[in-house]
């Protein structure tokens, strides 16, 4: 992906900032920022944390001097950076409120949405990440392994357990309603 090289040149000090690099980044951002924000918001539970982490993810990406990558690899790479940043955040407990989901927006009265969000929040951060990458982003086990740094076999087992757990939490709630 030529765009990635041009984008890297854009951030190298002393080098001329090229319009092509800037445009390449804008295109990449347009294509990836919303899914990435959704992932970060879902995994962290907070839109403000998702904003911060999104910015950090792209800054790290721009500073990483990434080699030439195709679109899928770039996407996977961005998710990997985002996942690492999420883990750092969870580890450092920088944001204590990350432990509880923050409600936002005008749609909080939707029972189904609350069901899913509440159910997801009862899962571990790693489980939420895996479910999102597999079922929302539609990543294969190999792609999830690349994004999370885990082995393909571990992904299969962890994803299965996470899915069973999430369904177990969702089922009684649905039955009640």
């Amino acid at each position, binding site marked *: 992906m030529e765009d990635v090289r041009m984008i890297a040149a854009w951030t190298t000090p002393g080098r001329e900032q090229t319009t092509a690099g800037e445009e390449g980044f804008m295109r990449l951002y347009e294509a990836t920022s919303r899914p990435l924000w*959704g992932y970060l918001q879902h995994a962290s539970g907070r839109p403000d944390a998702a904003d911060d982490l999104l910015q950090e993810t792209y800054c790290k990406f721009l500073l990483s001097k990434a080699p030439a990558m195709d679109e899928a690899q770039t996407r996977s790479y961005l998710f990997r950076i985002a996942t690492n940043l999420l883990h750092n955040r969870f580890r450092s407990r920088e944001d204590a409120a990350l432990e509880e989901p923050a409600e936002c927006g005008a749609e909080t009265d939707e029972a189904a949405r609350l069901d899913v969000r509440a159910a997801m929040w009862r899962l571990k951060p790693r489980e939420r990440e895996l479910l999102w990458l597999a079922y929302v982003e539609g990543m294969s086990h190999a792609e999830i392994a690349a994004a999370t740094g885990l082995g393909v076999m571990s992904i299969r087992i962890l994803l299965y357990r996470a899915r069973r757990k999430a*369904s177990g939490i969702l089922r009684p709630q649905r039955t009640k309603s």
Partner: protein
Amino acid sequence: MKLLGCEQEAGVIRAMQTGGWTEFLRLHVADCQDCSEALRLAEALRQEARRAERSCNPPDPYWILQRSRRMAREIAVRRMTLLLASMRALAAFYVVAAAGWLLRGYAALQFREAVSSISGASTWFALMGAMVAAVCVAAGLWPILHEDATRGKAGSVR
């Protein structure tokens, strides 16, 4: 129910995303508890994702570009500062070693003998060069160390 889920699960999720349902997959989902469970969960999550995307207002990309450029400059400055600090440490070490060697008188005693035994003008020049270099490095180091000491004092006063 299998130990690690159903082999068809990936195909079912892909079909849900692309809309490429085959008769086989439809029948399979109706029969397989794993796949129907995965499908239900995937649909719920994707609905949640669509809602999140609608309310999402990502930061201005131009601002991110500017920020990353500023960070790149800071990293470059940090690297240069580290290089300069190591050069300073090396210079200080060189001055101390050269001064120690000269002060112990070893060079003074052995100088003539060494020069006469090797009898090369190059040796004489090398020794003189080392001494001149030590003097130059010390002279260059003095204002830097002096400035550091002044800054250190000012910091401790504050």
